[in-house]
C-alpha cells in the first residue's frame, strides 16, 4: 500500500510538471513575439477507435490545432490556458473543485464562458492535451454514487490526513467524492465488488447483508457511473485484486453500463485509467428474463434503435454481448432489477445473485 501512495504522489508531481511545461511553452512564444499554438488530439467521432489490446476506446491520430494568431481561435486558446492556470492553483493549494464551480470561478478572472458546457469542454481539452483525467486536476463531477462494504480507508485530503474509516460503518453507504477518491486503501475483508445500477437495489443489498453473505463491497453506480466511480472500481480491482461484477437492468442501457465500466466510454477515449477490462456483466441478461420469467415492458423505438447501434459497435462483437443484444431484439421486451420482487423481495439476493455469481466464476 505504501507503493500506491508513492504512485499517487508521483502522479501529482507529473501533473504539475506538465502544467508548467505547457505554461512555459506559451510564455516563451509570447515573449519571442511568436503566436503560440497548441495541438490537441481530436475527440470527434471520426477519430475514436477501439483498441483491442487495451480493450478500450482510444483516440486516433487526428489533431486539432489552435493558434493564438487565428482570431477565432484566440478565445478558446485563452480559455484553455486559463484552465491550466486555474487547476494549477487548485493543485498547489490542495483544493478541489467541481465542473460547475469552475464555470463560475472563471468569471472572477474575467474569463468568459458562454455556458457550462463550454467550460466543461475546455477542461476535456486540457485532459486530452495532457492525457490526464480531470480528477488528476482535482476536478470532480457533481453527481456522486455510493459505496458500502468492509474496506478501511485513510484520508489524504488536507485536515483529514491519517484519519481512517470503515466503509461499512454507515448503512446508507458513503458518497464517492473527492476525499474518498483520493483516500488510500488500508485493508479489506471483501473478496469481490458488486456494482449495481440503482440506489433501491443497493439499499436492498445492504439490508440483506449481501456484503457479509458474499464478502462483497457494494457500489451504487447511479445509472451510468461517473468517472470517479469507474476510477474507484478500477482501483478496487487493481490495488485489492477484487473481482468486479456488474448487475444492471435487463435492457440495452443496462448492458451498456456494464460495457462502459469494462471498456470505457467514447467521451473519455483520451483517458486510459478508467476501465476495468476484467469486470464481469452478470445480469440482468435477456436470457435471464426468459429463464426467470420476469415481468416485462415492451421495448420502445429508441430502445430498438440503440440496440441496433450497439450491435455494430466494435466492443460488442464477442459472443455474450452480441447474443444478448440479438435476444433483446427478438423479444422486444425488457425488465428492471426490481422485477424480481414479483417472486418476493429477497428473491434477487436469495436465488438470482448466487446463481449468477456461480455461473460467472465457472466461466473463467
Amino acid at each position, binding site marked *: 500500500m505504501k507503493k500506491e501512495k508513492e504512485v499517487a504522489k508521483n502522479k501529482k508531481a507529473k501533473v504539475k510538471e506538465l502544467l508548467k511545461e505547457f505554461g512555459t511553452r506559451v510564455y516563451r512564444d509570447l515573449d519571442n513575439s511568436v503566436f503560440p499554438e497548441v495541438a490537441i488530439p481530436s475527440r470527434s467521432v471520426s477519430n475514436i477507435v477501439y483498441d483491442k489490446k487495451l480493450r478500450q476506446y482510444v483516440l486516433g491520430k487526428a489533431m486539432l490545432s489552435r493558434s493564438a494568431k487565428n482570431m*477565432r481561435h484566440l478565445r478558446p*486558446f485563452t480559455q484553455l490556458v486559463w484552465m491550466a492556470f486555474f487547476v494549477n492553483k487548485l493543485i498547489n493549494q490542495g483544493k478541489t473543485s467541481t465542473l460547475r464551480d469552475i464555470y463560475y470561478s472563471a468569471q472572477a478572472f474575467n474569463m468568459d464562458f458562454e455556458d457550462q458546457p463550454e467550460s466543461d469542454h475546455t477542461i476535456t481539452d486540457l485532459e486530452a492535451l495532457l492525457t490526464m483525467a480531470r480528477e488528476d486536476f482535482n476536478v470532480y463531477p457533481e453527481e456522486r454514487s455510493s459505496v458500502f462494504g468492509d474496506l478501511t480507508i485513510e484520508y489524504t485530503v488536507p485536515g483529514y490526513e491519517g484519519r481512517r474509516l470503515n466503509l461499512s460503518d454507515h448503512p446508507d453507504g458513503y458518497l464517492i467524492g473527492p476525499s474518498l477518491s483520493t483516500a488510500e486503501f488500508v485493508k479489506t475483508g471483501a473478496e469481490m465488488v458488486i456494482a449495481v445500477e440503482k440506489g433501491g437495489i443497493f439499499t436492498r443489498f445492504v439490508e440483506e447483508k449481501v456484503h457479509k453473505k458474499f464478502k462483497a463491497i457494494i457500489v451504487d453506480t447511479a445509472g451510468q457511473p461517473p468517472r470517479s466511480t469507474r476510477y474507484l472500481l478500477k482501483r478496487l480491482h487493481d490495488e485489492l485484486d477484487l473481482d468486479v461484477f456488474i448487475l444492471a437492468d435487463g435492457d440495452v442501457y443496462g448492458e451498456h453500463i456494464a460495457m462502459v465500466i469494462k471498456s470505457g466510454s467514447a467521451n473519455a477515449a483520451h483517458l486510459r485509467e478508467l476501465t476495468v477490462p476484467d469486470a464481469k456483466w452478470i445480469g440482468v441478461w435477456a436470457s435471464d428474463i426468459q429463464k426467470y420469467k420476469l415481468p416485462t415492458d415492451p421495448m420502445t423505438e429508441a430502445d430498438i434503435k440503440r440496440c441496433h447501434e450497439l450491435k455494430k459497435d466494435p466492443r460488442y462483437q464477442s459472443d455474450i454481448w452480441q447474443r444478448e443484444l440479438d435476444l433483446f431484439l427478438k423479444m422486444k421486451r425488457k425488465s428492471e432489477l426490481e422485477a424480481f420482487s414479483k417472486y418476493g423481495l429477497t428473491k434477487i439476493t436469495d436465488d438470482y445473485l448466487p446463481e449468477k455469481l456461480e455461473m460467472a466464476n465457472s466461466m473463467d
Partner: protein
Amino acid sequence: MSQATFREISPSEFFYRNRDLAGFSNPSRALYMTVRELVENSLDACDHNKILPHITISIKPVEKDSPDPKQYVVTVTDNGPGITPDYVPMAFGKVLYGTKFTLRQARGMFGLGATMAILYGQITTNKPVTIKTTQNGKMYEYTMQLDIQRNRPLILNKEKTDANGFKGLSISITLEGDYGKSQNKIRDYVAQTALITPYANISLQDPVGNKIKFKRVTKVIPPPPLEIEPHPTGVDVETLRRLIGHEYNTSQSFGQEMKERVKKELGADRINQSSDTIADLAKKRWEKLTRAVKTAASIVVLLDINLDDLEKVRVDNIDVPNSKISYITLLDENYHTIKLKKINPFFKHLVSVVEGDTVLDFMTRNFQRVGPNIAKKFIDFAKIDSKKRIGTLSNNEIVALADAMQRYPAFLAPDASCLSPLGEKLLEAGIRKVFNAEFVATVQRPPSAYSGFPFIVEMGMAYGGDIKTDSISLYRFANRIPLLYDEGSDVAMKVIEEVDWPRYRVGQESPLIIVSHICSTRVPYKTVGKEYIADRPEIEYELRNGIRFLARKLAAFLSKKGHLEMQKKRAGIYSKYLPMLAQFTTELAKAKKEPNYKPLLKLGEEVEEGEGGSEEQESQG
C-alpha cells in the same frame, strides 16, 4: 318576346355604377383614394406652375365617438395657382372634364380625380362639397353637388370674401370612410409621397389628433414635362382617327398656353386683344406664323371674339360647303352655329385645315421623331399615296395606316422629354428625408421605350441606420405617385427576387430598402386598379440593370464597412486576450515578470482576415 332597351348614360352615371373601377370599392379604400386624388391634383397644379408645394391634409370625423365606418370630412389645402372661379363648377362638377388627357406625364390616373371623390361622398352622405379658391386677393367659396344623371354641377351657394393672404385651393369632401382600417395606407401614402416629392411640405392631421409633418428638404423642382406629339408605334386606330380629326375640324379647345403663343408670335405683349387687332397683326406677319397660331388667330377673327375668350370655346365643326362654323362655349356648354365670313387669309387657312394635309405632311407634323425622310420611307412601306389628303382617307385606309405604324421597324426611339423623372439627386434627398440610413444611392437609367411609349426608370437603395426591416422592403412609384397595393405582383418585386443577393453581401434579413420609380406617358399597369406594373421585358431590363448597379455600390460599402468592423473587432480581441495569456502563463511558468507580448498586439491587427477561416482546423498529425 322581351325587348332590350338601349339607353345612353352620362359619364358620371357610369362611374356611379362602376365606382369599384376607380378604387372606391369600400369605406376604407374610398377614404384613402379621396386623400390620394386630392393630394395628387394639388401636387400637379403646383408642379405645372413651378410653385413649391405646401399641402395640408385633414381628416375629421363628423361624429367623434361613433364607430367606423362613419362620416369623415377630408380637407386638402394647397398653395397652388387655384382655379379661375368661373371654372370651379365645371372642373369639379363634371366627370372627365380636365386637362390630363394629353401625352405628358401627370400624376392623376383616371382624370376623374376629385370629381370621383365628390361623387362618392355625395352618394354615401348626401352632403355637398366645399371648394375655396383665390384670385386677385379674393376668396371664392362654392358649395355644390353633382347632378349625377345629367353629369352637371349643381351650385348650392357661392360666396366671395377677402382672401386674407390665403392663396391656393382648398376642397372639403364629406364621405363615409373607415379610418381605422385605412390609416396605415394613408400614413404610408403620405410618407411615400413625401419621399418622391422632396421639394414639398406635406402634413396630415388625422382624426385621432396626430399630426404628421414632412418638411421639404430641397427647393429644386424637377423640370416640368413637355407636351409632345405621340410616337407612331404608340398610336392605335382610334388615336389616329382623332389626330386626323384635329387636322380637319380642329375640334379642340385652346388653353392658356395657346393664348401666350398667339401673343408672342404676333409680337406684342400688351396688345389690345380684340378680334380686329388680332386680324391686323396676324395679316402683317402671316407668312411667319406657325400653323397652330394661324388657326388660333383665324378662330378669334372668324368668331369675332377677344383673344381672352379663346380658351372658353371649343370648335366642334367647320362646314365649308355651307360656310358654317359650330362651337361650344365651355362655361355654359351651349352649342352655337354661325355663318363663316370669308375674311382672308383666315378663311382660306381654315379651309386648308379642314381638308387636311397630305399624308406626308400629316406624318411629319403630328408625330414625334418623324421627319420627311422617315415619313417618306414609312409611307412607301404602308403603300399609301403620299400626296393624298389626310381628310379624304377611307376607313380602311386609316386602319391600314395604323396597322403599318405598328409594324414599321425603322422609327426612331420615342422622345423622353415628355417625362419628368425626379433625378438622382432629388431622389436621394427624398429617401434621406424619410429614412435615416447609413447608405443611400440612386441611379437614373437612360430613357427607353416599350410599344412606342417612352419611359425612364429611377431607382434608389437605402441601407442600415434607423431602417428596421426583417426583409428587403420595396417602395414603388409610378409617375411620382406611390403604389401601395399588390406589391407581390409588381415587376420590380419579380426583379428583386431574381437578384442573387448573397453575391452582394446582402442577407435575407438585411435592413435594406429599395425604391423604384417608373416615369412614362403610359405606365403599363396590369389591372384597372392601377396598383402594380406589368412585366414588360423592356422595363424589366432597366430595373434589373438599375438594381445591379446599386447592389454593387452597396456591396462595396458593406465590404468597406465590414473590413473596418473586422479590424476593430480584431484589435479588440487581441488586446483583450493577449494580456490574459501573459498573466496566466507567467504564473504557470513561474516566471518573475510577464512576457513581452506587446509586439504581438500590433501583429494581431495585421493578420489577414482569411486566416480566421474555420472554427477549428483539423489535421492528420
